[in-house]
């Protein structure tokens, strides 16, 4: 239930940012805005959080960088494009698989209407 409340806060904050700044900025602007506003609300935010990816034998292959990692339980991937597509979903699911984090949000600030998708990668 806590994760759902956290997602609600991120969604509400994203809508407020989109209402104020609208679409048209670079992705980084929205990342900074969301990090700034959520930090002001008291949430622990890490930007460009590295998520290591390992091969089957444990060899470190490289890092993904999640745009935001919130309260050590929620990965947020931000976009500023005309519309979300399957590649964006695949990217977020890749983050979740690599990090073994269950919950992720994909948020697109680039469209006239804010787009948010929530993903849960079940451990089972």
């Amino acid at each position, binding site marked *: *239930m806590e994760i*759902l409340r956290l997602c*609600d806060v991120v969604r*509400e904050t994203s809508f*407020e940012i989109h209402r104020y700044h609208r679409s048209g900025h670079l992705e980084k602007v929205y990342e900074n805005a969301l990090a700034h506003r959520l930090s002001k609300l008291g949430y622990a935010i890490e930007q460009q959080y590295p998520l290591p990816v390992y091969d089957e034998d444990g060899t470190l292959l490289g890092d993904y960088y999640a745009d935001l990692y919130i309260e050590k339980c929620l990965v947020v991937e931000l976009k500023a494009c005309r*519309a*979300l597509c399957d590649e964006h979903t695949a990217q977020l699911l890749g983050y979740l698989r690599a990090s073994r984090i269950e919950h992720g949000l994909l948020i697109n600030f680039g469209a006239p209407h804010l787009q948010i998708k929530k993903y849960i990668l079940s451990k089972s």
Partner: protein
Amino acid sequence: MLSLSQEQFEKIVAQGLEGKPLEICGFLAGQTSPDGKQVVGVFPIESDDKSELTYSMNPLQQIKAEREIRERGLEIVGIYHTHPATVPYPSKTDVARAHWGETDDLLFPGYSYLIVSLREPTSPEPRSYYINGRRIPEDIEEESVVIE
């Protein structure tokens, strides 16, 4: 089958008549069983469109309603809106907005779309549909509405 009480239906109609000539909207919350969907609560949400022909849920009110529904142990079973002056059948905009942007992905798969026509204000006409795709009428599936 979508079941709602007379009181719940009257709540939607009252919201619709108050909002007329603009469309109004909201969530239907309740429970789903093999027999259909039983509405337990009606959650009005302001339409940002302020239009006689379309509706668009206010996102902040939408999140608030979703939270309340979740915390009451219910699920969203449908979305209702009114057609103030036209037939209770999904418009092209209704169908388009049931999808993710321009994709064929449904925004709310499995939800009932209840439309209440108020073209005759003294005899409001409810109809409910599943919107399964973009083709009208092929992808529009009507379900029965029971008001008791």
